[in-house]
């Protein structure tokens, strides 16, 4: 499988009154054709800014300070704004968390799907309505020929997110970025939307970048996972390796802190709280909360160490040359 998208050294900075704050710090990853990459992180981890940076949609005071974004072999950072506009929607589409604010309240859903098509010259005014109905049917909206004339407020949250997906797939993009697409939805609706995304990915041969804070959603949807903390990808690898054999203490902590085990027993919480952008600890940003920290963690930023050819983590525990580190539990054979 070849790489559809390659990101290397992506760094996005916000120029705030009290100095620049690095929201995304040297992020590198790749997405293959037909693959779902789950980008998981908590608030302030930089996962949403990463998603916006890929489309060069970061607004001032934010700016992409460094990095390369290569899509189908083209360097997106070198494109003119007009060329970039042709990439957005047509090659890479974006689905937001809150479908109520992402849709325009004064246009019908049919008009909004039609606009996406016509901007990219995919259809005529007359053809747009027909195509909109076809797309609404594809995303399983019942009575699509009637619903096409509905305004967003006439639809439920789940139906609005289906409309967002219809707009996203309208121009047959190769990559869809979904930023917390189910966070605002109830759990049964979330399940339907995740099923729909999986189905669309299959039938349209899409690649998917799924941004979420929910490890359950990641486990159900992603082929590979990148875990972000304080602006950096701290671990990435195939979904099974991340869940079965996590290498970074943050990933391990997240998985261990989830409810489970005997009812009423204490959960294994991660100490402390997520650091604020602009006040990140030196060295590894996780070190003040890390149960395994040792000498170099507070002063040096760890490099990306390979655990297996497909699985890496930014943690000194994986540095074979460092002495005095805490003992790692044995790696289970899988």
């Amino acid at each position: 499988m070849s790489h559809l998208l390659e990101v290397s050294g992506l760094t996005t900075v916000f120029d705030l009154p009290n100095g620049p704050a690095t929201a995304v710090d040297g992020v590198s990853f790749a997405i293959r054709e037909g693959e779902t990459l789950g980008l998981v992180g908590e608030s302030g981890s930089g996962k949403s800014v990463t998603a916006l940076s890929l489309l060069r949609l970061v607004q001032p005071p934010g700016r992409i300070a460094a990095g390369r974004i290569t899509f189908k072999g083209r360097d997106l950072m070198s494109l003119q704004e007009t060329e970039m506009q042709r990439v957005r929607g047509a090659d890479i589409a974006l689905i937001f968390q809150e479908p109520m604010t992402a849709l325009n309240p004064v246009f019908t859903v049919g008009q909004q799907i039609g606009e996406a098509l016509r901007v990219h010259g995919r259809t005529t005014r007359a053809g747009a309505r027909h195509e909109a109905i076809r797309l609404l049917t594809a995303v399983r909206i019942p009575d699509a020929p009637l619903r096409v004339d509905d305004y967003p407020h006439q639809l439920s949250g789940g139906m609005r997110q289906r409309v967002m997906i219809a707009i996203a797939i309208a121009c047959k993009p190769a990559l869809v970025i979904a930023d917390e697409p189910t966070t605002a939805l109830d759990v049964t609706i979330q399940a339907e939307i995740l099923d729909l995304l999986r189905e669309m990915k299959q039938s349209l041969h899409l690649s998917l970048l799924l941004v979420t804070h929910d490890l359950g959603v990641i486990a159900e949807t992603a082929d590979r996972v990148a875990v972000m903390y304080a602006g950096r990808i701290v671990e990435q690898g195939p979904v099974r390796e991340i869940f079965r054999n996590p290498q970074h203490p943050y990933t391990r902590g997240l998985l261990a802190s989830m409810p489970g085990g005997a009812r009423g027993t204490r959960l294994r919480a991660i100490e402390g709280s997520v650091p604020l952008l602009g006040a990140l600890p030196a060295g590894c940003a996780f070190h003040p909360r890390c149960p395994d920290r040792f000498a170099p963690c507070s002063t040096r930023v760890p490099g990306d160490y390979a655990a297996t050819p497909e699985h890496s983590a930014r943690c000194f525990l994986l540095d074979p040359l460092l002495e005095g580190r805490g003992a790692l539990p044995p790696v289970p054979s899988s």
Partner: protein
Amino acid sequence: MSLLHVSHLVKQYTRGKGLFRRGTTVTAVDDVSFSIDESETFGLVGESGSGKTTTGRCILRLVEPTSGAVSFNGENVLALNARDLRARRRDMQIVFQDPYSSLNPRMKARHIVEEPLIIHRLGDARARRERVAELFARVGLDPAHLERYPHQFSGGQRQRIGLARALALNPRFLVLDEPVSALDVSVQAQVVNLLMDLQRDLKLTYLFVAHDLRLVEHICDRVAVMHLGKIVEMGRTAALFERPQHPYTRALLSAIPVADPDAPRARVVFDPASADRSNALREVEQGHWAAI
């Protein structure tokens, strides 16, 4: 011995009512009955619009119910006049979901926690000072931060302030309305542990209102599942999660994303036609009720 007993609780809202228009009536809580034992954690789960939050607020009369009865410690809460209700509220408190909007941003943390003591005229300034410091330590906050404002605390710390305030009057019963769902995943577990510690140490009784079924399964002794204003299933947590009887409960449980890529997934889709909304709860096994 049950501490709280709710029977046939109904809350209706009227929409679009005008001088010459009758408006439409929406029944948010539709004939809900349950009781909670002393020191028990009772989970009320459901999706948005299920009526779970309204039920919690009706019990404290933050929302006035349309009809029904709520008895707390043998006393009819709905019959209390304003003065008696205020006195009774010392025993019944609530912690809200959003620690960002539920704390007054212009009050120092000390004052937020102290305020209930002032309202109920408890202790002199020195005694209150000591009590606030004690509460701060009890919920795991640094007493050195008493003079800070809410925005100077993280989300998890703010929820601890909300808890300290709720505990100020030594209540016996707490309504926890989605107490951790606005928090970061890595911080949720800390607050959940704190809630479990407080319950054990202070012998608290909890009504835990939540949509996170994984969490409800972990901390609740008994659970009621609400759907469109009605309880469709209720029972001991293990029985309800292992042997769900109502089609809606089955769909809800099957929709929980499992943090295991190899977990078997069998999605059950709820067909409203498969359940008769007029069915009353009946006991399907001891202590396990379903509206089927």
